[in-house]
């Protein structure tokens, strides 16, 4: 027993030799030796499984989360995304679109151009969408697409929201124009007026979007506008075509509407699934 005691005292002195003076300067040498000897004599019971579990559970609250980052970014809600798009949208685009509709309305009601409000609605309805398409693909034309794909709000998401906003804006303009025509000319029919702007909008916007996705060139807007101008000229110069559109039966109208809608769905899938335009190897 005495030998064990001696050994413990010896160990305690060894411990002190290894310690920095700062740690034991407030104790006398004897006090320290007693503390160390007492600690050496005492034994700590190994905890059972339940105690271990309890300790882990208690400590979990203080453990870092899966990803512990400095909070510089915030949660982005749909409202924030809309705000972002509206903040950075081209004000001239809105102005030009409104102006086209106002001029179109004036030229029609004053009898200078278009011939009839139906034709005017037909020709004007997809124009704001076509003009705005370049904004949807602006990251691509600026060479920013690859970079913007890596952002929290990525270019695909942003492009799709822009598309939706443009459609809403375009249709609001067409609706206002229709109401204005119906208000000024009581002989016009609401259903025909709706067909006149809904049908060209759904089909032409779908085709334009398809062309814009496929033609990775900034000039696609000019290309689509040129195509639309030719089509408009045909409508204006030939009363037969506009009359044919106006007198389409309900089944054909529904068929064109469904085809346009399906083209839109196909376009959205294309936007989602396509990778970055430039997939060149390094």
């Amino acid at each position, binding site marked *: 027993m005495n030998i064990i005691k001696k050994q413990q005292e010896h160990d305690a002195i060894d411990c002190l030799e290894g310690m920095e003076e700062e740690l034991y300067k407030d104790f006398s040498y004897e006090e320290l030796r007693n503390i160390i000897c007492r600690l050496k004599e005492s034994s700590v019971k190994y905890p059972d499984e339940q105690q271990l579990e309890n300790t882990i559970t208690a400590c979990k609250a203080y453990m870092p989360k*899966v990803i512990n980052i400095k909070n510089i970014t915030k949660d982005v809600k749909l409202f924030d995304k809309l705000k972002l798009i509206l903040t950075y949208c081209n004000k001239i685009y809105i102005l030009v679109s409104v102006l086209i509709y106002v001029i179109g309305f004036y030229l029609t009601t004053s009898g200078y151009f278009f011939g009839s409000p139906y034709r005017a609605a037909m020709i004007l309805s997809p124009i704001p969408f076509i003009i705005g398409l370049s904004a949807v693909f602006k990251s691509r034309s600026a060479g920013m697409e690859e970079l913007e794909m890596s952002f929290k709000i990525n270019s695909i998401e942003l492009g799709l929201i822009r598309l939706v906003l443009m459609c809403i804006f375009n249709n609001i303009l067409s609706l206002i124009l229709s109401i204005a025509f119906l208000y000024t000319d009581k002989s016009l029919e609401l259903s025909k007026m709706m067909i006149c702007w809904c049908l060209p909008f759904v089909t032409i916007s779908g085709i334009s979007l398809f062309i814009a996705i496929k033609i990775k060139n900034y000039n696609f807007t000019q290309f689509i506008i040129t195509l639309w101008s030719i089509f408009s000229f045909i409508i204006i110069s030939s009363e037969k075509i506009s009359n044919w559109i106006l007198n389409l039966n309900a089944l054909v109208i529904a068929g064109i509407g469904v085809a346009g809608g399906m083209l839109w769905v196909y376009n959205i899938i294309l936007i989602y699934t396509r990778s970055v335009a430039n997939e060149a190897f390094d």
Partner: protein
Amino acid sequence: MRLLIENVSKRYNDKQALDNIFIELREGVYGLIGPNGSGKTTLMRILADVLKPTKGRVLVNGQDKTDMDEKYRELLGYLPQEMGLYKNFTAFEFLLYISALKGIEKKKAVWKAQELLELVSLKDDAKMQCGKFSGGMKRRLGIAQALLNDPKILILDEPTVGLDPEEKIKFKNTIADISFDKIILYSTHTISDIEMIAKEVILLNKGKLLIADTGENLLAGMDGRVWKSKVSEKEYANLNSINDNGLITNISRKKDYMEIRIVSDKKPFENCETTEPSYEDMYIHYFKTKGGVR
């Protein structure tokens, strides 16, 4: 943080761009080296969430990046090899726009944009339109945008292209400085860029992972394989024969002689002595087929 690239493959039609890459990354700088077509940019694009792998997955602390979606992109800072700018924006406006896309609050974005413009020496050009920027200025603005959100995973594809020597040094120091709490993947063809700052070097070739190890270990593996020799012009002209035994990695022309470095498993010729291997020697050793350098 632990970023695990787990058996990632990418195939473009008939070409295998990446083949079963498995790498684990933790905080620090990782130099990504490989010749053209080795798959560096493809790997970086996958990590930047720009491309989807054909096979395999990328895990952040055990969580699949696909499931994390925007929470993953929140951690990212990415500088692609080539990037355009919105020409009508000023440098400051550009950074504010990017901040908004990264989900940074406006006040913090203003403060961060100013700080970074100073860091990349564009403070005086903050109000200049990006369309008027030189190549080097565009690159510096690209670096600034990558750092805006204090990213935890920073992916830099040839970041120093177009920078002047002073800017290169400043950039490398910045990267070394911020790397303590970030995973930085740094792709370059300029070996000296990563020599001092990379914790590990990842060598890719033809879409496959050749080796990933610390620079010290890679260089240690080259011990006794790098030789130097002083030769005359005439002797140098007759050195074609050594291509069977080794590769000349460097030639420096002095006044009366030429000093050459050779990577070879055995002594290439009599008048040679071993020397300390460099990163360039290592690159040549791993990527050049014998007889292809001179």
